[in-house]
């Protein structure tokens, strides 16, 4: 049993960077709430070198412990269903890796693999390339930024909904041309789809396509949804209308804010 999961608590950074599709946003903890204090456009975190990151630090960041929330562009998600999840961590890991190898063609060793039970019989698997993580950590270290947390926005939303007694049937997270739809059943996720769209107008069509797939594959009829959309000047009403025409009702859960920070 990995006791760190249950007994060891890690420090929360007082400053976060959200790495979006082609921008960065800086948040600081003020009166127990994270407030956006800066935004840098036309920047991709993975393309920044340590010098550029150092310049950003000088202009936007405080010299404090910092967290980084990445959007899901570099992440691969899977939800595996089992008859029974073993209690022992090693057995659990072997089981998940065995299932992962069946669906994932690449060498798992090249990836940072994390997995979390999200229901009695379901495990959420999260993969990110080792070299992506190493590059980020190196750049931040060279830039003198004390990076103590690297997380993912979609996982944070899932965590947020898992803690609630009820959740919408699915939520949509959109960051420019990247969209993730996560379906929930009895407050636990069972299907995740990540897709890219060329035109923002195509979001509703892709969502409905995914919805139809879920209806036919999982014999469920999702009817409520939540949204976490981080696009400037995006006409939300038109998307909501299109989803409403398909009988979908927006859930009043508080997942519509841009980013949910670990807590």
């Amino acid at each position, binding site marked *: 049993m990995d006791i760190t*999961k249950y*007994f*060891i*608590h*890690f*420090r*929360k950074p007082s400053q976060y960077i959200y790495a979006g599709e082609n921008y960065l946003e800086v948040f600081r903890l003020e009166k127990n709430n994270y407030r956006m204090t800066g935004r840098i456009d036309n920047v991709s975190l993975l393309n920044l070198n340590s010098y550029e990151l150092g310049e950003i630090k000088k202009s936007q960041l405080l010299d404090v*412990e910092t967290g*980084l929330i990445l959007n899901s562009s570099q992440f691969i998600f899977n939800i595996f269903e089992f008859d029974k999840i073993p209690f022992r961590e090693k057995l659990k890991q072997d089981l998940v890796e065995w299932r992962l190898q069946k669906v994932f063609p690449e060498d798992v060793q090249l990836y*940072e693999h*994390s997995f*979390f*039970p*999200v*229901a009695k019989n379901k495990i*959420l698997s*999260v993969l*990110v390339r080792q070299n992506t*993580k190493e590059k980020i*950590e190196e750049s931040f270290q060279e830039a003198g930024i*004390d*990076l*103590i*947390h*690297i*997380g*993912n926005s979609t*996982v*944070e939303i*899932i*965590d947020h909904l*898992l*803690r609630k007694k009820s959740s919408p049937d699915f939520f949509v997270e959109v960051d420019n041309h990247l969209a993730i739809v996560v379906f929930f059943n009895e407050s*636990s996720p069972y299907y995740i789809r990540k897709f890219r769209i060329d035109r923002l107008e195509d979001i509703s069509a892709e969502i409905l396509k995914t919805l139809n797939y879920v209806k036919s594959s999982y014999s469920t009829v999702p009817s409520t949804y939540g949204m976490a959309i981080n696009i400037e000047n995006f006409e939300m009403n038109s998307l909501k209308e299109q989803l409403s025409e398909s009988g979908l009702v927006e859930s009043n859960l508080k997942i519509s804010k841009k980013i949910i920070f*670990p807590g």
Partner: protein
Amino acid sequence: MRVSYNISNRKKIDIFTTLRYALVLLLLAALFAYLGFRTISVKDQQLRTDIEKLSYYNNQLEEMNEKTHRYRDEIRVVQKKWRNKVRYSNLLISGKRFNIIGKLDMVEKILPVGVYVKEITMKIGSGAKVLLTVVANSYANLFQVYKKFSPYDPSIASEIENDGIHQARISIILKNTSKEKENENETK
């Protein structure tokens, strides 16, 4: 369910929160240990009480067993006494069947005139044997006695003569009357 996702290699432990949780865990562990100890001691106390009770009941049982044996012995003695009494009573009952008056009546009828009985002895349980001391005023009368007693297996124990008075000690067997025989059969 919680999903705490942090892949940073430079994670820093929140010592204050961890210690707080550790303290809570420690307190809970102490509480459980205390409750466990208390439960065990209460159970132990109960067990001791039960053992004491069991020991008390065992002693009681042993005492009762001893009493039972004693009572059985006493009952055996009483039964023995009672049986003896019953046997004695039965003997008395069977003695009642020995018809003394009938036998005296027979002797009276058998004896001739001029002869009288000085002494007669009949013992219960001695069968039909009757021991008589008869006195006659003449030898002829005494001879008459011998003659009359001849069907009853007479046995003359002694015969003396003093001043013309003849005295003889005779034992005869007076068989049971038919009525006495009926009673005997009924008893059998």
